C-alpha cells in the first residue's frame, strides 16, 4: 500500500474524522492547560509571544519546551546544552517510532516525515490504541496528529497573549499545572517493583542534584542514574528467569 503525499491529501477520508474528534476531545482537556501554561511560562521567562508560539510550532514537544524555558530562565543559555537536553528528553520517541515502524515503513517518505514530526506521547498513545482495536489507519494518525498540533500551538499562543492580563501567574498556582500533568503521566507507570525503584532513585538523585548541582542539571543527572538503575534491574531479572 504505497501511498504518496499528494494522493493522501487530495482524498481525505471523511468518516475517520468523527472517530478522530471523538478520541481527541478528552485528551484536548489535558493538552490545553498544558499549552496555556507553556505560553504563560514562556512569557514570564522573557519570551515574546512570537518566540514562544514559534517554539510550539517548530518543536511540538511539551516536556522539552518546559525544560528549555526552565533552563533559559535559570541562566543556562548554551545552544549545545539546551539542544542536547531536548534530545535526551525526547529519546523515548525512538522507542515509540520503533513500535510504529511496521506500519510507517509502508508509507511514502514525505508521509513518514510528516507523521514523525507529529508523533507526540498523546498521538502515539491514540494511534497504538486504534491499531490494537481496529488496525492501523493512515488518516486516523494524520487526523490525530493535526488536531493535537493545532490545539498545542493555539493554546500556547493564547497563554502567551493572556499572560499580560494576569498580574502574577504564580499566585494562581498555575505553576502547579505542570507537576500535576506529569503526575497523571507518572502514576500509571509505577505498576511494578522496578518502576518504583527507578522512581525512588530518580527522586533521591533529583533532590540531591538540585541541592548541589548548578541550574537544572539535576534532571539529566537523575534521569541518567535512574535509567541505568532500571536497565541493571531488568538485566538482573532476565538472568534469574
Amino acid at each position, binding site marked *: 500500500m504505497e501511498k504518496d503525499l499528494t494522493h493522501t491529501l487530495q482524498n481525505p477520508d471523511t468518516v475517520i474524522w468523527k472517530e478522530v474528534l471523538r478520541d481527541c476531545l478528552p485528551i484536548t482537556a489535558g493538552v490545553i492547560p498544558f499549552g496555556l501554561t507553556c505560553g504563560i511560562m514562556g512569557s514570564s521567562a522573557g519570551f515574546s509571544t512570537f518566540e514562544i508560539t514559534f517554539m510550539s510550532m517548530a518543536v511540538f514537544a511539551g516536556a522539552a519546551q518546559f525544560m528549555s524555558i526552565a533552563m533559559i530562565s535559570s541562566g543556562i543559555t548554551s545552544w549545545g546544552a539546551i539542544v542536547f537536553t531536548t534530545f535526551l528528553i525526547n529519546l523515548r520517541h525512538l522507542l515509540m517510532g520503533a513500535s510504529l515502524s511496521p506500519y510507517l515503513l509502508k508509507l511514502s517518505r514525505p508521509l513518514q516525515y510528516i507523521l514523525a514530526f507529529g508523533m507526540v506521547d498523546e498521538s502515539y498513545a491514540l494511534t497504538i490504541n486504534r491499531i490494537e482495536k481496529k488496525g492501523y489507519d493512515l488518516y486516523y494518525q494524520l487526523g490525530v496528529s493535526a488536531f493535537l498540533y493545532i490545539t498545542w500551538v493555539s493554546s500556547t499562543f493564547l497563554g502567551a497573549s493572556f499572560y499580560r492580563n494576569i498580574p502574577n501567574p504564580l499566585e494562581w498556582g498555575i505553576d502547579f499545572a505542570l507537576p500535576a500533568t506529569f503526575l497523571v503521566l507518572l502514576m500509571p507507570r509505577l505498576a511494578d517493583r522496578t518502576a518504583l525503584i527507578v522512581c525512588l532513585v530518580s527522586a533521591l538523585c533529583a533532590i540531591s542534584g538540585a541541592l548541589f548541582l548548578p541550574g537544572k542539571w539535576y*534532571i539529566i543527572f537523575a534521569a541518567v542514574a535512574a535509567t541505568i538503575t532500571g536497565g541493571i534491574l531488568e538485566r538482573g531479572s532476565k538472568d534469574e528467569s
Partner: protein
Amino acid sequence: MNLKLIFIIIGMALATFLTRIGSQVVFARTGMPVWLEKWLKHVPTAFLTALIVPALLMPRGYLDISFGNSYLLAGIVAAFTAYKTKNVLVTIVVGMGIVIALNRLMI
C-alpha cells in the same frame, strides 16, 4: 526578536525530529535491540520523577518538608487524584485549588 533564541528553537526542533524519525532510519531493517528497549523503557519514569519531585519538595529553591509547603501537600493529594482518575484536568483543578486555598490561608 532574539536571534540566539531562534537558533536554540531551531536546534531543539531538529533534535526532536531526529528522535522521532530516528527509529525508522536506523532500526527499520534490523528491528529494535532488546537490551536497548529495556533500558529506554525507564526513561519516561525517571524523567517525570525528576521533574515532579523537586517542584514539590523545593518550590522556593530549598528543601521544604513541612506543612508550610503548599506544593508538597497539594502534590500528595494530586498524586492520589492522578492515580484514581487518570484525568489531567481533574488533577490540575484539584491541585491548583489546594495551592491557591493554602496560600490564601497562610497569608
